[in-house]
């Protein structure tokens, strides 16, 4: 794999994104803003403070984390799959000096980039709501990149093994939705049976939520363990998207 050739793939995606972002950018703000208003203000008015914080302030960092990883997941499930199959973009690229490993690296880095774009956008939204206490939130950017990379890896692994585009609903329903609900975004997991918290420890969104929450409130030390966890998992998962895509594409 050559990073320069992976960057060429990234550049292609960036060009397409910047062409379209004017029409879709407002939507990036809309969905998390809806969650904040509905859950934070609506539901929040019936919920007592959590860990000494008003409910909306409690969920805001989790919304940053979940919106950012969902951006990578959409990109590297439907986006990658469509490029690979219907649009035949992969076929076009693979007859150039860009090889499959370069191409997959480009997809992964682009997925993580999408996470960062969304993460920053939502961080601005919650800052505007007055829900950010510390300027240290800026340090969350590289952590979101790590989190985005993990979800891009998982998405491309799934992409490489699915028989068709309809199968992605399994990924969303059986994997993403439980993570979204049980990663400590909407309620602390210590209110759940011990098993839930134990399982959550092995899932990536849980750790990204911890990191986002720690940086939003300025308590950096709380994030260190989770940053290590995210870094290790990025590396552990890394070979699989390449291996499985080679298996799928190179016949």
């Amino acid at each position: 794999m050559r990073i320069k050739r992976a960057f060429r793939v990234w550049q292609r995606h960036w060009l397409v994104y910047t062409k379209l972002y004017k029409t879709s950018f407002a939507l990036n703000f809309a969905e998390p803003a809806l969650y904040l208003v509905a859950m934070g203000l609506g539901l929040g008015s019936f919920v007592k403070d959590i860990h000494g914080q008003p409910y909306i302030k409690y969920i805001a960092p989790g919304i940053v984390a979940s919106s950012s990883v969902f951006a990578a997941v959409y990109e590297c499930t439907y986006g990658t799959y469509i490029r690979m199959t219907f649009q035949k973009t992969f076929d076009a690229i693979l007859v150039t000096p860009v090889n499959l490993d370069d191409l997959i690296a480009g997809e992964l880095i682009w997925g993580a980039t999408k996470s960062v774009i969304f993460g920053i956008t939502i961080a601005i939204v919650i800052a505007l709501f007055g829900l950010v206490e510390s300027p240290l939130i800026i340090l969350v950017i590289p952590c979101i990149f790590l989190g985005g990379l993990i979800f891009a890896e998982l998405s491309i692994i799934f992409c490489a093994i699915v028989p068709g585009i309809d199968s992605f609903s399994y990924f969303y329903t059986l994997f993403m939705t439980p993570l979204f609900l049980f990663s400590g975004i909407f309620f602390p997991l210590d209110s759940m049976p011990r098993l839930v918290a134990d399982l959550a420890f092995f899932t990536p969104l849980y750790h990204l939520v911890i990191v986002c929450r720690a940086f939003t409130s300025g308590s950096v030390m709380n994030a260190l363990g989770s940053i290590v966890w995210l870094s290790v998992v990025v590396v552990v998962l890394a070979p699989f998207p390449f291996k499985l895509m080679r298996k799928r594409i190179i016949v």
Partner: protein
Amino acid sequence: MNRGVFRVESAEGWALRPALGGKDREPAVDIVVARKLIKDYNGLRAVDSVDFSISRGECFGFLGPNGAGKTTVLRMISCFMPPTAGSVSVFGLETAGRPSEIKSRIGVMPQDNNLDPDLSVIENLIVYGRYFDIRKKDSLRLARVLLEFVELQDKAAVQIDQLSGGMKHRLLLARSLMNNPEILILDEPTTGLDPHSRRAVWDKLNHLKKKDTTLLLTTHYMEEAEKLCDRVAIMDSGKIVTIDSPSHLMELHGGNLEDVYLKLTGRSLAD
């Protein structure tokens, strides 16, 4: 070799590389060599132990019906698929060893449209040029010349879905020339085109041939093989039945290439 020599002042004066004439002409070198090449997939032997070599500057055609193994051979030459057994080398390099180096020197025009629908006509060329590390300034200039070459200069800013089938074909041809390829690989370059568009593609290919670009194509049109190819490999069920010039084949077996095919394989090309 005169790699990277673009003469891009105008479409009229445009040359992929300066034509080699007279004593400057390089001796015929085998630019693609396949030895006992085999490809199995989906439980079938798609290519069954074929041997061929193609000289620099030659137009070489793989002729046969659908499923004869023509596309699979091209895919192995363009490093898209590894052989199951045997070997294929391009520019003296094994395809398995240094694919990027080989791919940087070949152009591929696919059978199916795989233009990037998210990009405009000119962006398709620029982005493609970037994969070959062509600098933006050069690729913009080259893209404009190539668009003129394929008569799409008025469509530069248009989105792909607004092009007709013939225009998409011509744009695919222009895209495959972005890296100034020494070998141009064309998988059924005119399938599905109306007679007018087909002739337009032939004109362009003849132009490239005069400029000493090696052309490799698959086709199931006899007329195309007769018009363009110096030599053809007649393929049937993954095997090469014979390799010869179209004129010699017709001399030997009589009639036209269609009759030759029928005589050699016992089947008509339409099967």
